[in-house]
């Protein structure tokens, strides 16, 4: 069927900020969709409030709206743009839910917008469990027994019928938020109650437990001619009971016979037809009983998903791109397979390697949370690795994770806590693989491990082969003992040089030399969708230890870009954005771009983005292998965050040409001592500091510079293990735990500048000219990690003289560090004094936000500078002036971690960010809050509970609320202060003082906003309960004075001005 000509303009809704359960996979799918639709000649209107995405680059769509993803705002965009169609399936659950709301509220009908991809009816059938179950039974498919309840009584009735253990799943929540398993009645009632509250429609599903069953996913595509193909099968290593986002998964399915696989395929075809997803990709999940083979359908996602991104990277078949093309009427046989070029897209990819995905967790960021994996997703990122065996891909994936592991153990960083081993095997957790290894090493029977973990015996036996090799290697006594055969066998099982070196008592480089001397080198093979049956034209490569190499490097001028690895808190999509910009830049300059990365969710690992893609771990060994094969002119390490930066010096020492700012200078900026000297020479102030390697030194420094001090290990990103310390005892405690996190490196002890305001400056330098890209003022005061702080551009209240001093300091520092590329400097301002807090001669987290705000891609310019262009040549010689106001707000994952307090501090906790763009600060702030899920109220009641130190500071703000017509509730102390200043407010108890208390008020939806500033650096129990209640109830809450000021300013703006929508392109006309 030819593509539709009745459609001209198509709207795509993105997935918004990165949150747990929805990460950059939707930037990948959205970017593909934009490109695909424009390639077919359609105009694209894009809505997404995440500034760190590639899809929101002004060149990705005709109109890019960085506006809040709420129905009222999107309706305004529809009214303004009048698109012919809305593609509902590209923006994850957010995009889908929003599309449903727009359809149900009649907005789409009103403006004649057609829903394409999945129709409303199909979305409902797939998403609403009752309808889904009915549909499945109609086509004769087995589903998990259970049904819906809208109250506790109903829930109890269901569980009495199906029995315990039972699973509770709230309807319409993201990534399974609020779901849980209950083994007894008490647990069940508690979980049911939480679930009912979390569900926006107060509905929960109660179903029989299929815990421990084998879990599979099939990625299905359908076109308008009803052609249906399976793109990829995925088997979960962790069986049912662990959210698939938190499971180790393997593609293709490993333990199904052809008969079972095709039964699943038949079911998938029937499901997509019955649900009626007309075009595009869907993900269907199955559970299979390991002993009877009973197969039940778990769920279907009628849209592209995290799994479809993984499947696309695993097979080379770009699902989102194809889905976009199918949505406008093209059929699978009309679209060529990008990779083979000669064959069509209507086929089922077959692969000749094994793909393993391992999720990345950050339990260390949330010490109050148990490392326990459940049906609620907790991971913040993932890695994928490709190998010619499961063993190889598993070990490659493990070393891609950057958790300081170099494979399945055997790297000198073994888990020492081995008590209750059986329990650790039984309760799924982020370290389970290592516990399995240990169990095997200690002689536990394979079958027993499989019984305890429910993990398929095939996987356990594969792991055993790895462990057996480890046992053989550890017996090697000399270099001669390490025979070529043994070494080669170990490499084929995925062992890293680091592991083998550790086992055979050699260092990594020594082993590398020995290995190369023996002629054992990896080869690179292509990902080609067809297992070699047809010639592939896209160099999408992975390494393995086989005979034949297919890399065939070109003779072009080329540069390698090292990506940022798995998403984690502190290092996410922003760095992928920079890497992709670098690839664009190299392309524009006629260079071949070679991307190296291990994150399947990203745009950078789309084989369409760079000239060559190496899907490889970002370790010294793996990168050296690529560099030796490709022999590039340069390697870019400054765009991928800490991951490639850590490799800069080791790569440099091996003679790899690092381009841009030199590794020595990058190192200098991280080295407090040398850097302190430099600042002194440049006459730039900085907070007093010292460097400690042990507790005694730390205490001495604190005594010298005075408390409070800010402590952290050097070489960390995202403020990991960073703390503000007010006295000796806390400092002692800190030093005990921090020494481990720092891996033997120094602990930095800085004087903490209380009440200072912080400023971030992003600039670019070509070595002789330095141009500031943007200056951002943090909304939160010093002490809150810059990644968690909201910020505004341009700054609101910094005197011009100070701005100039910052510009001058930035220039001096960039030149002194001989920066070629990007530099980010954090300043603190206190009483008109300027201090440098941190200098990062590399791309910072704020680069995409600044780039969107100023309409210039700083990363792209920087990449061009690195290959020798000057800023003069590039025409970027002056700091851009903007007439609009841009606010960045961070998005926090607390809702996923039930027992964690929601306070901000020096350690970064946010997973993503949103932007609010408008002509005034108030509206920009209101938009940013709306985008971050804290829609500010314009009427109703505000509950206030303030720390004494903040009361005076917030007096005017609270008064403003009263003037704006809000009813106020205040806790005792706060109330007496406010009434003392003739502000009318109603009393409310703190928790434990009586009822109704402030938590009751929040739970009963009688409050529309909460302002609560904490008393000390440690949160109090009742205050925490109050903040958690606000979080659960989804009402905006503010925990800082500056946050309160900003919120009220936003509220005032919402009341006085009209919220309008403007595409990004219009700001820069």
């Amino acid at each position, binding site marked *: 069927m030819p593509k539709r000509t009745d459609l001209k303009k198509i709207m795509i809704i993105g997935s918004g900020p990165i949150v747990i359960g929805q990460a950059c996979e939707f930037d990948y799918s959205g970017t593909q969709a934009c490109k695909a639709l424009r390639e077919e000649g359609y105009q694209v209107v894009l809505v997404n409030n995440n500034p760190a995405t590639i899809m929101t680059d002004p060149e990705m769509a005709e109109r890019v709206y960085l506006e809040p993803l709420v129905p009222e705002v999107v309706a305004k965009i529809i009214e303004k743009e009048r698109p012919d169609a809305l593609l509902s399936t590209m923006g994850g659950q957010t995009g889908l839910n929003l599309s449903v709301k727009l359809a149900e509220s009649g907005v789409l009908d009103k403006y004649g917008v057609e829903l394409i991809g999945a129709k409303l009816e199909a979305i409902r059938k797939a998403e609403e469990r009752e309808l889904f179950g009915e549909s499945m039974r109609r086509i004769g498919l087995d589903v998990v027994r259970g049904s819906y309840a809208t109250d506790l009584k109903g829930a109890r009735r269901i569980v009495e019928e199906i029995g315990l253990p039972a699973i509770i799943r709230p309807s319409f929540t993201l990534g399974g938020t609020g779901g849980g398993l209950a083994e007894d009645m008490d647990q069940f009632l508690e979980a049911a109650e939480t679930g009912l509250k979390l569900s926006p429609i107060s509905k929960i599903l109660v179903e029989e437990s299929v815990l421990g069953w084998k879990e599979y996913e099939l990625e299905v595509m359908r076109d308008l*001619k*009803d*052609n249906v*193909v399976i793109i990829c099968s995925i088997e979960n290593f962790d069986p049912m009971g662990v959210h698939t986002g938190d499971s180790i998964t393997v593609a*293709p*399915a*490993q*333990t*199904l*016979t*052809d*008969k079972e*696989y*095709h*039964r699943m*395929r*038949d079911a998938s075809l029937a499901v997509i037809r019955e649900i009626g997803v007309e075009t595009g990709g869907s993900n269907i999940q199955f559970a299979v009983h*390991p*002993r*009877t*083979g009973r197969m039940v359908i778990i769920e279907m996602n009628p849209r592209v998903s995290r799994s479809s991104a993984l499947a696309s990277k695993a097979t080379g078949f770009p699902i989102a791109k194809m889905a976009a093309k199918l949505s406008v009427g093209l059929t*699978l*046989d009309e679209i060529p397979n990008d990779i083979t070029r*000669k*064959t*069509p897209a*209507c*086929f*089922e*990819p*077959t*692969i*000749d*390697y*094994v793909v393993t995905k391992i999720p990345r967790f950050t339990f260390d960021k949330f010490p109050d949370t148990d490392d326990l994996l459940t049906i609620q997703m907790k991971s913040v990122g993932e890695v994928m690795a490709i190998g*010619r*065996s*499961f063993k190889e891909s598993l070990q490659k994936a493990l070393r891609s994770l950057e958790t300081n592991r170099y494979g399945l153990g055997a790297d000198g960083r073994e888990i020492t806590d081995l008590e209750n081993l059986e329990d650790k095997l039984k309760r799924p957790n982020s370290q389970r693989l290592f516990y399995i290894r240990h169990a095997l090493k200690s002689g536990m029977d*394979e*079958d027993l491990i499989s019984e305890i973990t429910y993990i*398929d*015996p*095939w996987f356990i*036996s594969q792991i055993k*082969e790895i462990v057996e090799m480890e046992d053989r290697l550890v017996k090697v006594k000399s270099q001669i003992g390490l025979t070529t055969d043994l070494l080669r066998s170990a490499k084929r099982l995925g062992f890293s040089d680091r592991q083998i070196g550790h086992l055979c008592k050699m260092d990594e480089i020594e082993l590398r030399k020995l290995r190369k001397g023996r002629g054992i080198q990896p080869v690179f*093979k292509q990902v080609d969708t*067809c*297992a*070699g*049956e*047809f*010639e592939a034209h896209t160099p999408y490569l992975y390494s393995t230890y*086989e*005979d*034949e190499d*297919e890399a065939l490097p070109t003779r072009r001028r080329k540069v390698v870009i090292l990506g940022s690895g798995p998403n984690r808190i502190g290092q996410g999509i922003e760095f992928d954005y920079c890497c992709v910009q670098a690839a664009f830049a190299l392309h524009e300059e006629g260079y071949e771009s070679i991307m190296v990365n291990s994150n399947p969710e990203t745009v950078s690992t789309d084989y369409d983005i760079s000239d060559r893609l190496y899907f490889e771990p970002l370790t010294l060994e793996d990168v050296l292998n690529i560099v030796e094969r490709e022999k590039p002119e340069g390697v870019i390490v400054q765009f991928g965050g800490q991951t490639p930066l850590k490799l800069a010096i080791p790569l440099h020492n091996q003679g790899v040409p690092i381009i841009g700012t030199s590794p020595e200078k990058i190192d200098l900026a991280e080295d407090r001592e040398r850097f302190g000297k430099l600042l002194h020479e440049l006459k730039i102030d900085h907070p007093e500091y010292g460097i400690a390697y042990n507790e005694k030194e730390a205490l001495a420094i604190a005594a010298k510079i005075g408390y409070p001090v800010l402590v952290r290990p050097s070489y960390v990103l995202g403020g990991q293990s960073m703390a503000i310390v007010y006295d000796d005892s806390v400092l002692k405690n800190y030093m005990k735990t921090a020494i481990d996190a720092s891996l033997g490196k120094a602990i930095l002890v800085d004087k903490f500048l209380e009440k200072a305001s912080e400023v971030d400056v992003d600039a670019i330098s070509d070595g002789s000219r330095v141009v500031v890209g943007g200056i951002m003022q943090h909304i939160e005061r010093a002490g809150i990690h810059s990644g968690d702080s909201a910020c505004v551009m341009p700054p609101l209240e910094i005197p011009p003289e100070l701005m100039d001093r910052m510009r001058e300091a930035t220039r001096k520092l960039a030149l002194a560090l001989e920066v070629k590329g990007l530099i980010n400097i954090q300043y603190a301002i206190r009483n008109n004094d300027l201090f440098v807090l941190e200098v990062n001669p590399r791309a910072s987290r704020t680069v995409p936000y600044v780039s969107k705000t100023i309409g210039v891609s700083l990363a792209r310019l920087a990449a061009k500078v690195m290959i020798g262009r000057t800023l003069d040549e590039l025409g970027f010689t002056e700091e851009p002036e903007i007439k609009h106001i841009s606010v960045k707000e961070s998005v926090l994952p607390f809702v996923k971690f039930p027992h964690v307090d929601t306070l901000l501090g020096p350690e970064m906790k946010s997973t993503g960010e949103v932007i609010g763009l408008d002509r005034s600060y108030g509206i920009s702030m209101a938009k940013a809050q709306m985008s971050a899920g804290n829609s500010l109220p314009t009427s109703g009641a505000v509950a206030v509970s303030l720390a004494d130190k903040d009361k005076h500071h917030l007096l005017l703000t609270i008064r403003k609320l009263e003037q704006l017509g809000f009813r106020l509730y205040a806790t005792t102390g706060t109330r007496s202060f406010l009434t003392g200043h003739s502000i009318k407010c109603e009393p409310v108890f703190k928790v434990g003082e009586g009822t109704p208390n402030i938590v009751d008020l929040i739970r009963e939806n009688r409050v529309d906003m909460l302002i609560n500033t904490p008393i000390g650096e440690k949160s109090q129990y009742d205050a925490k309960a109050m903040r958690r209640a606000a979080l659960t109830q989804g009402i905006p809450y503010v925990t800082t004075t500056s946050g309160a000021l900003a919120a009220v300013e936003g509220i005032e703006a919402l009341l006085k001005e009209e919220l309008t929508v403007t595409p990004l392109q219009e700001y820069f006309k």
Partner: protein
Amino acid sequence: MTKPKRQSRRAVLVIEDGRTFQGTSLGATGETVGEVVFNTGMTGYQEILGDPSYDGQIVAMTYPHIGNTGVNATDIESDRIRVAGFVVRECSGRYSSWRATHSLDEYLKEQGIVGIEGIDTRALTLHIREKGAKKGIISTVDFNYESLMNKLFKYPGLVGQDLVKNVTVRKSYIFRPGTEPESPADYYTYTPGRPEQEADTGPEGQENKHYIVAVDCGIKYNIMRIFSYFKCTVIVVPATYSYAEILSLNPDGVFLSNGPGDPQGVPYVVQTVRELLEHQPELPIFGICLGHQIQALALGGRTYKLKFGHRGANHPVMDLATGKIEITTQSHGFAVEGFQDESGTWHITDCDELEVTHLNLNDNTIEGFRHKTRPVFSVQYHPESSPGPHDSWYLFRRFIELIEQRKTAAVGSTA
């Protein structure tokens, strides 16, 4: 399920153009010669091993982990392993499936099949893709290159050879499924019929609807399972059966099965089909794979050898009448010659009576045709799947419809 670790023993695969792969022994020890081909299916190794279409061929699996689910008693496609040799990247030491009874290695050993593992199967695949399917030898006993090349030189290869005689049944028999399946996908409910049974001449049971004579050029069990599912009785006859012998069974329809090798190597089957077509213009005939090629030859068409063939379970085929695509299982090294005219219509070379019905979208080879005036059609691929997708079972229904139409017409004419 746990079994003793296999001893790793050296094995070598030598291709006639000299390319050599060093690996370790899989299955039986010894030596085997055949045409080396690759199969891109990720599942279904057990079915592939038993598919008589692979007679004379050393099959290399492109998916690197083979043997993960062991072997079981039901997923067999003929009474024994038919491949000449087996090549895998890695055979699982331990298998996992609730239906499995043996490991792949044990199965190969038990049946005396020589295999090799641990080689770069992707390199082998690309080699075959570039150079075409070639003769090869696997040995675990002789590592002398000259000697192996010599053995290869003596091996005649597949072109023009009659391989059907190796796989066809010696006596006719009726296929009897154990119990009637709900659907052919429900593998666990039925057992395969026993070959070499005496042919039954009369109708039996109330359920039977049609009698189908299947000319066995190397038939797979799943074909018969599907016919049984459609309530047909299948009488399997040797490929050497003459036109008269087939007719004496009074079939409602004739099925020409899949099979190994070159259709030009079995002129006697071509002759039988030619006579059937000549004398029985009303008789529905359905051919697949080798049967499809034989049918084309009988109608005056031509066949040729493909460079490296199609073997796998992901080949897209378009039904030209509906424009719909089916994902098919394929295992053939020869094809029927066809061409596209200026108006874009496809034709079978030298066969004006035929209309092309199916086309391979990967390389535009002919995948199916039907006779313009008679109830005769065929497809190049394996609609019975096993292994592979079930997209093409409708063809069996189509065949049965032709039989029913004919019966209705016959009733109509006598009334």
